[in-house]
């Protein structure tokens, strides 16, 4: 039995590959559908409402076919609406504590593939807590998953290629995109010309988006950032302030202007979800390309822990295609470690996947470097700007912790201010806190700080009653 956590592109590819190897596969998926954030469309049973989804997403058909294939596969079982709230490993035995239908139980598995994906990275800025400001991922999910528009006049901003499909999807569904701002400059691509040429399909895709923008008369402005969100008298978003920024995101003098809008979809890249990897004590390191903490894997997507594999964004942000290649490799190799034999064709196929992965990783690395978050974003903040929305901790509170209370690392900053201790458990703010801390203390954050910020023993909230009544692995053995 191979258990896959996460039913996104990586998990889907892993499941199909492992099942092809003759293994029984179980996917644990937190939502009621497959596809992850990437193919976050309507549930399968809503098929008649699917008409028109193509125009909201460019490789929608591929995702649709793959989802059906997984759903119909006799060797793949899917636990929908199921969360792992804590994972353990003792004496080489992997145990997953799951919560499903308001019940907590334990599952054991011979092999595990982590395909937990990533979530939107947010940067704090004045007004980011005003209703109407959301991540670009949230805006896209609303549209794809339930045909809900983020607003009537939407500004899309931040950095990265993700801005393009979000803006294009909104436009194609009739939403007015009143501004589209990329903070980084196109000249940052120059060192990566060869990578661009090697991935020309991406260029064509970008051109398709650009055509969408020109049809709808939306100007794609680079070197611009939303530096403030402004609320109206009703407390909800009324406008955003946009400014020209330099290569380090420093605001250029006298370039600020206000744009009226009722929604801001903002994206600063993604943060891999490391919680379960941390539970299992899997070796992680800092991805130098974008400063996120990622799982260390070998050529077979095997982690530092026996029988635990990882694929997709948890090994480094790289998008759905790389995720699927990694997923397929993880699926094939995990099945092989459980005894599946590879034919000559499969050996060849594996070699091809390894090559494909290398090319896709080169492209992903280029993207991370081109669309980085540059250090001077911190200058956009005012003293009262909240860094942690859950616990309402401002940047002034963090400065006080460093300069008056002697905080020297992320943990002591948390303990003195409660930053990152609220409902989201630092998922939203901890990367920002680390950057602020480094700036304030003048000491670069250590890898330890990044790792400790990603550490969450309770991966998913679970009620005390469910824990108290949870069954252990002995009395909840899964029968097939």
């Amino acid at each position, binding site marked *: 039995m191979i258990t896959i956590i996460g039913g996104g592109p990586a998990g889907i590819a892993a499941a199909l590959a492992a099942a092809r190897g003759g293994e029984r596969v179980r996917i644990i998926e937190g939502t009621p559908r497959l596809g992850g954030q990437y193919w976050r469309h309507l549930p399968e049973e809503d098929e008649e409402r699917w008409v028109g989804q193509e125009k909201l997403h460019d490789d929608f058909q591929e995702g649709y076919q793959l989802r059906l294939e997984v759903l119909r596969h006799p060797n793949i079982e899917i636990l929908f609406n199921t969360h792992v709230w*804590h994972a*353990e490993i*003792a004496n080489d035995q992997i145990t997953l*504590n799951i919560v499903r239908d308001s019940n907590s139980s*334990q599952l054991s598995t011979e092999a595990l593939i982590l395909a937990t994906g990533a979530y939107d990275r947010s940067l704090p800025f004045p007004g980011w807590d005003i209703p109407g400001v959301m991540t670009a991922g949230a805006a896209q999910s609303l549209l794809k998953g339930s045909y809900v528009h983020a607003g009537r006049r939407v500004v899309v901003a931040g950095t990265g290629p993700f801005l393009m499909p979000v803006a294009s999807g909104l436009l194609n569904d009739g939403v007015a995109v009143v501004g589209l701002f990329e903070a980084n400059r196109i000249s940052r691509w120059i060192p990566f010309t060869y990578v661009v040429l090697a991935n020309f399909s991406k260029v064509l895709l970008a051109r398709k988006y650009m055509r969408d923008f020109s049809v709808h008369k939306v100007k794609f402005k680079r070197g611009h950032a939303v530096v403030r969100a402004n609320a109206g008298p009703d407390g909800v978003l009324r406008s955003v302030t946009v400014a020209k920024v330099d290569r380090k995101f420093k605001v250029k003098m006298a370039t600020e202007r206000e744009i009226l809008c009722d929604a801001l979809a903002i994206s600063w890249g993604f943060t891999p979800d490391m919680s379960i990897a941390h*539970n299992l004590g899997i070796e992680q390191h800092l991805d130098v390309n974008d400063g996120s903490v990622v799982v260390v894997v070998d050529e077979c997507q095997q982690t530092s822990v026996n029988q635990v594999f990882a694929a997709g964004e948890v090994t480094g942000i790289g998008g759905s295609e790389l995720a699927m290649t990694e997923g397929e490799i993880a699926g094939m190799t995990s099945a092989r470690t459980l005894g599946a034999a590879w034919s000559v064709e499969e050996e060849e196929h594996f070699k091809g996947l390894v090559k494909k992965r290398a090319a896709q990783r080169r492209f992903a690395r280029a993207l991370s470097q081109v669309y980085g978050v540059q250090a001077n974003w911190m200058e956009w903040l005012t003293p009262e700007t909240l860094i942690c929305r859950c*616990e309402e901790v401002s940047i002034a509170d963090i400065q006080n*912790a460093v300069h*008056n*209370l*002697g*905080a*020297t*690392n992320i*943990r*002591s900053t948390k*303990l*003195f201010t*409660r930053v990152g*201790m*609220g*409902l989201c*458990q630092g998922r939203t703010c901890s990367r920002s806190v680390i950057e602020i801390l480094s700036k304030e203390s003048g000491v670069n954050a250590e890898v330890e700080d990044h790792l400790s910020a990603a550490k*969450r*023993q*309770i991966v998913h*909230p*679970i*009620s*005390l*009653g469910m*824990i*108290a009544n*949870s069954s*252990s692995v002995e009395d909840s053995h899964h029968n097939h």
Partner: protein
Amino acid sequence: MKKPDAIILGAGIVGAACALQLTNAGLRVLVIDRGAIASGTTGSGEGNILVSDKEPGAELTLAMRSRDAWFELSDDIGGGFELEAKGGLVVARTSEDIQELRALASRQKIAGVEAEEADGEGLRQLEPYLSEEISFGVHYSGDAQCQPMLATAQILRVVRERGGSVLPETNVTGISMKDGAVTGVVTSSGAYSSEIVVNAGGTWAGEIAALAGSFMPIAPRKGFILVTAPLPQLIRHKVYDADYVANVASDDVSIQSSAVVEGTRSGTILIGASRERVGFASNFDVSVLRLLAAQAIALFPVLKNVPLMRAYYGFRPYAPDHLPVIGEDPVVRGLWHAAGHEGAGIGLAPATAELVRAQITGSKSFMDAELFSPARFYFDGQPRMDLIS
């Protein structure tokens, strides 16, 4: 940096409190910790300041003085660490437990602890959400709570303002001595000399004693704390089951647990307090969580549907006789110990610091601290190795 009059090893609550006392006595102090401020046991605690959980005796005397000393300390440094005289409520279920709790409370009252029996309506008024199956409790108005990490940081801020220094993230690699007396410490960032070194190393105090060639059998006792999502106030006191007192004093190696439940200023509810003697084991044991959750729900059924948001564990420093270690080392002159407070370090810190100050400066103290002396780990000038379990 000018030569310090005293070096304090450990920037947890006990080290901070000692630093403040010695600073206030006119000494120039240097506080050194290998990690960040409050990053050891202090950073994994609940902030208990309890008089309710102790039998009459030396430790209760220390606890009662310390409870008052906390409020004096708060006035001295200007607060800022959520000190709250919230009171404690100890409850019992079986008639046997009720009898025992009654007897304990009356012994404590003789010793001067404020303890009021409560049942029926009185109990509901104290804690409206308490389980209806609980019919008896004792209200201890003296019990208090603080945010221990902030307390430590605020105390050390004042120590710095008053001329002391704090060196976090600095490893102490040696204690230098001459003719059986301390002359200073060697650290990862250089050597510092001083004739007075205070060992406030908490769970790691034994390692510090060993650097000076001394013996102190302090061992870790692991404990988990569960933290719920923030809620409107449901729980007003520090509420715990009477068998907690028995657990604290237990020498059993296996796990003991009786829930200690309390609300915090930030709205979260903290649930302790498991006790395990498993060394510095870093495993996250779901069965302990299960036990604590069930016990907390037994006290407050309303907690059943409350989401657990976070859980963490720490290591209490405990001595074989469960008493703190306060006093000069029996074999190394100038080395003073202030450690081994087990789960009561936050509560006992200010009075411990007063004893340390009195002993170092040779002034009169509020109690006879003979029982806390590290000399108890020696017999006939030899370390009592039999104390290591």
